[in-house]
């Protein structure tokens, strides 16, 4: 072989070997989209607030909250005398009622699930379809609704005013205006509701730096929640809700907020719920149609209905079985061991 030919052969061989070589061993270079999340940046978004906000026109007082609690647990607020706010918004079931759909006056089944009152002090509009613009307004709604407590407001005033034990409670709660009035009743109940805040959960201890507070599986779930599964697009912040309204593709015919806001995007749209203590609040969704957290994850992964009003933030997720398990493990870390609620002795 001539030197020239040998040189050509050597160069070709080297080239071939170089091209045929496997990629360098060691950590694979990640594409930008696969960059591991900066976990401390994510965790900072979930710090618990320092205090509960109360509105300027209905500030907190111990006596107002006590009156509110008494009214909240008083079944004499209903026409049948058997249903109080607490009957459906029951502390034993995460302030819901453990059923797919609520039950109202005459034990008739309602068309939507009972939502929780947990952590509502931070919300701005209320009910599945957002039709109540304040907690004060919302408190009076179910009392008067025919299908729920079925109590006419002026009749209710007569009943409460005739109970002597309520007089000092109203006087102490509203020293400037000790009337038994719809306005005062709404303000008292709303004040009590604002005190219902879920306590410290294992997740919070992890956020505060205790690496042993939750499992590695749950930590992976947290990253998925914020990244691949995109849950945090709506379930954001320490209470895991931004109070937004979306059609998430549930097959029910209920058009939700679409009845009150006549826009295509609001058809089948319901309020984003907070996720604190969520594993105590089955079944899930506005119609209780999803029985478990696993079913919820499956729904968001691929089981949603495609229609014009579907939220732009809902897309197939292509989660693996392991990823689904990690998401559920994470959601379970949001539950706090809250002390049982004491039931008030009602005035006579």
């Amino acid at each position, binding site marked *: 072989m001539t030197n020239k030919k040998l040189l050509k052969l050597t160069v070709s061989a080297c080239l071939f070997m170089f091209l045929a070589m496997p990629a360098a061993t060691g950590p694979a270079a990640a594409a930008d989209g696969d960059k591991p999340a900066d976990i401390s940046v994510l965790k900072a978004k979930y710090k618990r607030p320092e205090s509960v906000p109360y509105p300027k026109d209905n500030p907190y007082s111990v006596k107002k909250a006590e009156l509110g609690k008494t009214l909240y647990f008083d079944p004499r607020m209903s026409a049948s005398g058997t249903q109080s706010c607490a009957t459906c918004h029951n502390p034993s079931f995460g302030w819901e009622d453990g059923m797919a759909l609520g039950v109202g006056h005459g034990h008739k089944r309602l068309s939507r699930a009972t939502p929780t009152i947990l952590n509502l002090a931070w919300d701005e509009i209320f009910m599945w379809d957002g039709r109540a613009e304040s907690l004060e307004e919302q408190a009076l709604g179910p009392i008067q609704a025919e299908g729920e407590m079925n109590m006419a407001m002026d009749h209710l005033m007569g009943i409460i005013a005739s109970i002597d034990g309520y007089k000092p409670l109203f006087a102490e709660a509203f020293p400037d205006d000790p009337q038994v009035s719809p306005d005062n009743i709404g303000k008292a109940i709303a004040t009590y509701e604002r005190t219902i805040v879920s306590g410290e959960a294992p997740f919070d201890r992890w956020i505060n730096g205790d690496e042993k507070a939750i499992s590695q599986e749950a930590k992976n779930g947290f990253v998925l929640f914020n990244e691949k599964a995109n849950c945090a697009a709506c379930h954001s912040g320490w209470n895991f809700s*931004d109070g*937004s*309204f979306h059609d998430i593709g549930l097959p029910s015919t209920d058009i939700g907020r679409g009845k009150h806001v006549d*826009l295509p995007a609001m058809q089948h*749209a319901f309020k984003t719920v907070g996720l604190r203590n969520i594993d105590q609040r089955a079944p899930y969704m506005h119609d209780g149609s999803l029985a478990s957290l696993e079913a919820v994850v499956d729904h968001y992964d691929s089981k949603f209905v495609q229609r014009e009003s579907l939220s732009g933030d809902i897309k197939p997720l292509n989660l693996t079985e392991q990823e689904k398990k990690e998401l559920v493990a994470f959601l379970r870390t949001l539950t706090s061991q809250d002390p049982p609620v004491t039931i008030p002795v009602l005035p006579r």
Partner: protein
Amino acid sequence: MRFSALLASALLAALTFAPAARAAEVEITQKDKAFSQETVDLKVGDSIKFLNEDDVTHNIYSKSEPKEFEVAKQDPGTSEVVTFDKAGEVKVRCAIHPKMKLTVNVTE
């Protein structure tokens, strides 16, 4: 002399037929589920360019009489211009995120 007169006439003509002041376009961004400002003052004919710099879809709208409009399902990274051609107060909201509030005050 004749040239300066011609120039002077041309300038005068230009000034006389100068177009009215151009309508303003204000940019308002949506980020972290909030508008970049809570109020804005405009003149009739001015516009707002609504930019979605968020990582979620928005759906802003107004049902106020001076300007009813909707920017439906606005994807992240997109913008749309809305012109305000009547005086009055226009309340702009996001249908999806009711905490987002903007008041547009349009005057003649």
